[in-house]
C-alpha cells in the first residue's frame, strides 16, 4: 500500500533522486563512533538538532493552552501544569530541553573549535553557527518571561537592564524590546511571545537550512 502510494507519486514527479540526495549518503568511517569511539564528538550537532525539534514540537503543543496576557499567562501555565493530563511532562520537556539545547550547542561548538574545522573553506558555516547560537540564546531569554511568575519577571528586568547598557542606543533598544520605556508589562509579554514563537523560530529555520546546505556542499571535514 505505502509502496504503491510512493510509486504513484514517484511516477509523476520523480522524487527518488531528491530524497537520495538528502538522506542516502555514506557516513565516513572517521565520524562513526562504531569504528572509533572518540568519534562520538561528531554527534553533538545532530543531538542539538534533535533537541531543537523537541523544543519546537513541545512549544507548539504548549501554545494550545498558553495565553500571552498578563492577567492570564500565569494562570494558563498553572492550569496546563496541574489540570491537563501530561501537561506537566510537556512543559517539563520544553523547560529542561531549553537548557539541554544550549549545552548541546556548546559541545558542538567546542568540537568544531578544537578540531579547527572552522578554517577555510568552512568559515561561512562557522558564522552561520554563531548566528544560530545567538538565536538560541534569544529563544531562551524570551521564553523565560512567558510563565509570568516572579522569577520570569525579574530575569527579564535584569536582561532588559543589560540591553540598556549598550552605548548610544541602549535606551531605545530596551524600549524596543519591552514595548514601553518604563513598564515591563502587557506589551512586553506580547512582544516576547511573538519573538519567541514566530520571529526567532523563523530565523532559526532559515539559518539551520543554510547550515545543512553548506554541510552537504562542503562535506564533513576529513580525519585529523
Amino acid at each position, binding site marked *: 500500500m505505502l509502496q504503491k502510494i510512493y510509486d504513484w507519486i514517484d511516477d509523476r514527479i520523480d522524487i527518488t533522486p531528491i530524497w537520495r540526495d538528502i538522506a542516502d549518503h555514506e557516513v565516513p568511517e572517521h565520524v562513526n563512533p562504531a569504528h572509533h569511539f572518540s568519534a562520538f564528538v561528531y554527534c553533538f550537532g545532530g543531538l542539538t538538532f534533535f533537541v531543537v525539534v*523537541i523544543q519546537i*514540537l*513541545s512549544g507548539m*503543543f504548549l501554545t*494550545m*493552552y498558553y495565553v500571552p496576557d498578563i492577567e*492570564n499567562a500565569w*494562570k*494558563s501555565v*498553572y*492550569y*496546563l501544569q496541574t*489540570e*491537563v*493530563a*501530561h*501537561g506537566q*511532562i*510537556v512543559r517539563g*520537556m520544553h523547560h529542561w530541553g531549553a537548557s539541554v539545547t544550549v549545552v548541546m550547542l556548546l559541545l558542538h561548538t567546542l568540537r568544531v573549535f578544537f578540531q579547527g574545522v572552522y578554517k577555510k573553506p568552512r568559515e561561512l558555516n562557522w558564522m552561520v553557527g554563531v548566528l544560530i547560537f545567538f538565536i538560541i540564546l534569544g529563544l531562551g531569554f524570551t521564553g523565560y518571561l512567558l510563565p509570568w511568575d516572579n522569577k520570569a519577571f525579574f530575569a527579564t528586568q535584569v536582561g532588559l537592564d543589560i540591553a540598556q547598557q549598550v552605548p548610544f542606543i541602549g535606551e531605545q533598544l530596551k524600549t524596543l524590546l519591552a514595548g514601553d520605556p518604563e513598564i515591563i508589562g502587557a506589551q512586553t509579554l506580547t512582544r516576547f511571545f511573538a519573538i519567541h514563537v514566530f520571529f526567532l523560530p523563523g530565523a532559526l529555520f532559515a539559518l539551520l537550512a543554510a547550515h545543512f546546505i553548506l554541510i552537504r556542499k562542503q562535506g564533513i571535514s576529513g580525519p585529523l
Partner: protein
Amino acid sequence: MSEKKQQVSRRQFLNYTLTGVGGFMAAGMLAPMLRMAVDPVLKTSSHGDLANVSLSVDDITDEPQRVDWKIDQVDGWYESEVTKTAWVYKDENDEILAFSPICKHLGCFVSWEGSEDFPDEFYCPCHGGRYYKDGTNVPGTPPLAPLDQFEQKVEDGMLFLGEAKEQGEA
C-alpha cells in the same frame, strides 16, 4: 557468515532494530504531547446544580417568556459569570416547560414569535428554522429535532433550571 540460508540479513537486522528503537523514542516523545492535546476531549464535564432563575411559578403563564439567569462558568483557567436563557411557559396540563433557545439546526438563537410571519411559533432568523409551541420542529424547515428542554424543579414556589437535554427525534 555460515553457508546456510540467512533468515535475516545483517542489514535487515540493523534496519529493524534502528527503526524499532527510533520509533520507540519518537513515540515516547510524542505520546505526552498528543495526550495533552486531546485532553479536552477526554475530560469529564462536571455536573452543575440546578440554579434558581428568580422566577416565581405563579408568574409563569401559557405564553412562553424569556428567562435569563447567571451561572458561574469555569473555562480552563478562566472563571466568569455567564448568562443562560430559557423560554418558559405552562402547557394546558399546567406543566412547566423550559426550552433551550439554541437552534437544533446550527445553533443560532431561537425566539418565541421571532418572526411576524409565523405567530405562535419559535423562529430562528439564521435559516428560517421554526418550531411549534411544544418545541417540535416544523417539518420542511432546517432543524431536524425538537428544541432541547432544561432539567427543572420547583422549590418554595421558585423555578430552578439545570442542563438542557435533548428530546427524542421528531
